[in-house]
């Protein structure tokens, strides 16, 4: 009995230390998620102004731009999957990957070839394990993305879209991709984050939440040097800003789901400790009871023996 008591005590201790770790991670995630939300809010004015400007150009000039033109028969699609660098965030990475898989299946069903672009080590590991080709991946920033990273990703995707990487892609890729999708986790609240897939390119400029309100009349702008040049410089920025937005949302979601996962881990540890403490106490009492009955039995036996010899 004494041995199992020691075992239970050791288990309680190890659960205690696990609990300390998960509690610490929960607190860290909680403080970081607030910062991530602040960053997402701080980036909003830029996105808003950019959207306003882009829709102004789109409204007042009939300039066709490669980034907004729908290809006639799309054959290749690129998907940017935004995952996390680290695990311990519940179903965060797997649910975004599941959403990505769904999109891949859908696009393949439409007869399109799919190129994968990834951010985050979790996504990389997922596809490496399955030995699936990945066009490019970026890692090491998933919980605090910077604009430079978004700009880099944006430039890569735009290059793939406009076919500037033809030389690099080789003969099996005669033209660039025809559409670009982004799969990321939208941060709705601390409690709910949902994996979302959006089509990034070709651009549809005016989009629900960020569009300027309808009653706001757009003034008749003068464009310098020319509408085409302005659009040329605006659209890539617009794409980058949307990617940045997706990265920021994903970061906030990752931290929120990590906080949630760590909270339930801490709760579970507490449960376990309670359970083990009970079992350990039982074992201790059983041990004592047994010892007493052994002593009593021994005394009785001795008493019987002396009584018998007299």
């Amino acid at each position, binding site marked *: 009995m004494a041995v199992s008591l020691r075992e239970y005590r050791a288990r309680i201790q190890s659960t205690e230390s696990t609990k300390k770790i998960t509690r610490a991670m929960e607190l860290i995630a909680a403080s970081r998620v607030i910062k991530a939300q602040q960053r997402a809010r701080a980036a909003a*004015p830029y996105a808003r102004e950019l959207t306003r*400007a882009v829709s102004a150009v789109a409204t007042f000039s009939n300039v066709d731009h490669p980034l907004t033109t729908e290809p006639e028969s799309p054959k290749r699609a690129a998907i940017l999957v935004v995952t996390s660098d680290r695990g311990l965030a519940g179903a965060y990475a797997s649910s975004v990957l599941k959403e990505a898989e769904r999109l891949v299946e859908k696009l393949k069903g439409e007869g399109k070839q799919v190129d994968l672009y990834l951010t985050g080590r979790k996504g990389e590991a997922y596809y490496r394990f399955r030995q699936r080709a990945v066009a490019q991946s970026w890692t090491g920033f998933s919980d605090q993305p910077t604009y430079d990273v978004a700009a880099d990703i944006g430039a890569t995707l735009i290059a793939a879209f406009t076919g500037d990487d033809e030389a690099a892609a080789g003969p099996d890729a005669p033209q660039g991709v025809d559409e670009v999708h982004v799969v990321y986790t939208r941060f709705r609240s601390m409690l709910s984050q949902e994996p979302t897939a959006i089509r990034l390119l070709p651009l549809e400029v005016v989009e629900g939440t960020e569009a300027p309100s309808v009653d706001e009349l757009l003034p008749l*702008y003068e464009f*310098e040097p020319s509408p085409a040049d302005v659009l040329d410089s605006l659209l890539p920025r617009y794409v980058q800003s949307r990617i940045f937005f997706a990265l920021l949302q994903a970061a906030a979601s990752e931290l929120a789901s990590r906080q949630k996962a760590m909270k339930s881990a801490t709760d579970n540890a507490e449960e376990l400790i309670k359970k083990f403490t009970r079992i350990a106490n039982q074992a201790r009492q059983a041990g004592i009871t047994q010892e007493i009955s052994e002593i009593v039995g021994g005394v009785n036996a001795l008493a019987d023996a002396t009584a018998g010899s007299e």
Partner: protein
Amino acid sequence: MAVLQVELVAADRLVWSGEATMVVARTTEGDVGILPGHAPLLSLLVEGVIDVTTTEGETWVAAVDAGFISVAGDRVSVLSERAEMSHEIDLEKARHDLERLRAAGENDDAAEAAVRHAEARIRAAEKAS
């Protein structure tokens, strides 16, 4: 008197917003000065310095990366991926950066843009002090 509502926005934050009487920015076509009542304008910026004269008569200076300026009905927004107010710039460090960039001596567009941005930061910091 009419005033301009100015917003200076970087990709990751709102750098400055407030009222001003004049904004001077450098576009691809040359310097442009904006006073209240300016016609709606959407123009591309080059790496350079933005001067903002506030309603109190103070002058703010900011260094910006390539971006654009939009003017509409006395609302001026300056958007740039990177934007810094002059007091946020460490002059010593900016000089150091410029020297390093020049020493690197690369000749592609990105390197030249980086040099221009570094120069703009130094100009902004010097102008303010």
